């Protein structure tokens, strides 16, 4: 259990951040931030739409996030507090913080229902199957809308942004275990809603 004198401590594995070259280029010259912006603008905007239920508010939040990221890039450290941060996780941490501020300001304003604000996507070419699926998705939306914020957020990050549990833990400032439980409970709630006939 104890290391012998002179023995090196095992190094923690840090996953390679695929954005590292782009981040380094943007640090050298802020004008090179654009490729990072182009890569992530859709993801940040989408996350904001799911959270705010409003396209205009999502645009405002997206602008805040990228402006803060550009100006704050010199302070970004790939090695975060848990030793395992990436640019994408950092960007979504900014989004989460901006969202918390935004939400405080929006408490007075009524929010549109998620499914009404977003519109349901077209599902498949078969009209009968699409109708059934749309009905199921409609009920899934209702279940998602009733979820506590942290469960809904974890679900969106997992399914829409296709983040790993590890990344979601970094964004939400939680342990991986608690993120797994959040997603499990959220999905169980959706499954219960689908079961109801």
């Amino acid at each position, binding site marked *: 259990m104890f290391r012998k004198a002179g023995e090196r401590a095992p190094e923690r594995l840090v996953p390679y951040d695929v954005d590292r070259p782009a981040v380094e280029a943007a640090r050298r010259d802020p004008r090179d931030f*654009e490729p990072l912006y182009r890569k992530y*603008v859709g993801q940040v905007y989408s996350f904001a739409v*799911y959270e705010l239920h409003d396209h205009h508010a999502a645009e405002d939040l997206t602008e805040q996030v990228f402006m803060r990221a550009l100006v704050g890039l010199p302070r970004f450290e790939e090695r975060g507090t848990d030793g395992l941060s990436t640019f994408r996780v950092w960007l979504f941490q900014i989004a989460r913080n901006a969202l918390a501020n935004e939400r405080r300001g929006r408490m007075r304003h009524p929010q549109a229902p998620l499914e009404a604000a977003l519109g349901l996507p077209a599902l498949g070419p078969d009209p009968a199957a699409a109708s059934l699926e749309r009905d199921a998705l409609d009920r899934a939306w209702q279940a998602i809308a009733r979820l506590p914020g942290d469960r809904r957020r974890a679900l969106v990050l997992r399914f829409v942004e296709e983040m790993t549990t590890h990344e979601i833990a970094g964004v939400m400032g939680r342990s991986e275990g608690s993120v*797994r*439980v959040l997603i*499990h409970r959220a*999905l169980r709630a959706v*499954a219960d809603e689908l079961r109801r006939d």
Partner: protein
Amino acid sequence: MTDAALRLDAYLEQLLADREARRPRPAAPATPAVDPREAVAADLLARGLVRFHPSFRFEEALAARLRATADSMRLAAAAGGSPAEGTLLSFPGLSAASPMLSRERVPARGLLVGGAIASGVSLAGAAILAWRRGHRLASEGD
């Protein structure tokens, strides 16, 4: 709960990887330990929760604003300022908790502070030059 959550996590990992690779999904979950109802819900969400993209107009307008900000940062850095590390100073009468000084405004104000430092240095330099020139002319007149 934790074991079930762990198994579900493995199932989702496979589900999302299959979707990304456009591999066909088996009718029943490959991991029998996953609750079939949860697997059905997961499949539905993987298909139905789409990603939204901002309008072309918005994306381009924000790209232009980011480019302008990046140019300002370069100019400030060239002038010896450091906009990203600028300190936010409160105006008299505004407390730190004021919404005018909320966190999301810090970067913009940081830039202004950086720009203000650069402007201040320029003005001070011009004043010194004017004073030295005036002083020299006065000496020559004596």
